[in-house]
């Protein structure tokens, strides 16, 4: 099934929407593209929309943690939204929710990052 993704910039927020399965096989391409989008535009915050992700394992966690660290370096905040219960369990287990704020959906998350709809 694979993974597809789109990157949109709203003010200073990079919105990353993932769809499909995020595993080790998909992780590398995602990482490369994500880094390029992060550093070639004036970005401060990242919003990761997980709504259409049907599978994720610890390789996905690695990619998310890596980008989280980069956003901290930029002085911004990393927010995740629309996390399914199963993926939420994996986030919980790994302590990710202790460092990354979770919002219910993209609209709410963007509002908290100061982006007017």
């Amino acid at each position, binding site marked *: 099934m694979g993974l597809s993704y789109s990157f949109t910039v709203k003010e200073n927020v990079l919105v990353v929407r993932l769809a499909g399965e995020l595993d080790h096989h998909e992780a590398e391409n995602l990482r490369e593209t994500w880094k390029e989008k992060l550093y070639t535009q004036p970005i401060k915050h990242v919003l990761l929309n997980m709504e259409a992700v049907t*599978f994720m394992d*610890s390789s996905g966690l690695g990619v998310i943690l890596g980008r989280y660290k980069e956003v901290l370096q930029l002085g911004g905040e990393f927010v995740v939204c629309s996390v399914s219960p199963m993926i939420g369990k994996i986030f919980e287990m790994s302590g990710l929710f202790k460092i990354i704020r979770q919002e219910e959906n993209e609209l709410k998350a963007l509002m908290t990052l100061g982006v007017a709809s």
Partner: protein
Amino acid sequence: MRNRMYLEIASISENESFARVAVGAFISQLNPTMDELMEVKTVVSEVVTNSIIHGYNEEPNHTIEISCQLYDGEFDLIITDYGKGIEDIEMAREPMYTSKPELERSGMGFTIIENFMDSVEIESSVGKGTSIHMTKMLSSKKTKVVHE
């Protein structure tokens, strides 16, 4: 019900999704819950990925064996590689530990495996390989026990 399945795959990352989908399809005959199915698929993905990245250093022409058995609702899963083995199993099991931080590994693989399976045994010898034996009771059986 008794059933078994054996799968041998090449150590390439394309096979991570194939392996988890194949094992998922195999256990579906026991009508597991969606959560159980996802948990098993996640575990297969974790172990196969470990074999590819750590066991075989991402060299493509090695073998990973996946052996599954169903016995009265208990699912038995053994995944074996003949790679470099794990030097310190206790350390490998530690949450957040990874031997390859440069690859942006989260170090959460074993933690996820242990959370999603009922039992996990790791046998490994350096230079020979690693075999992970896991079991999980699936709920179709759990429900039956309740009614008995």
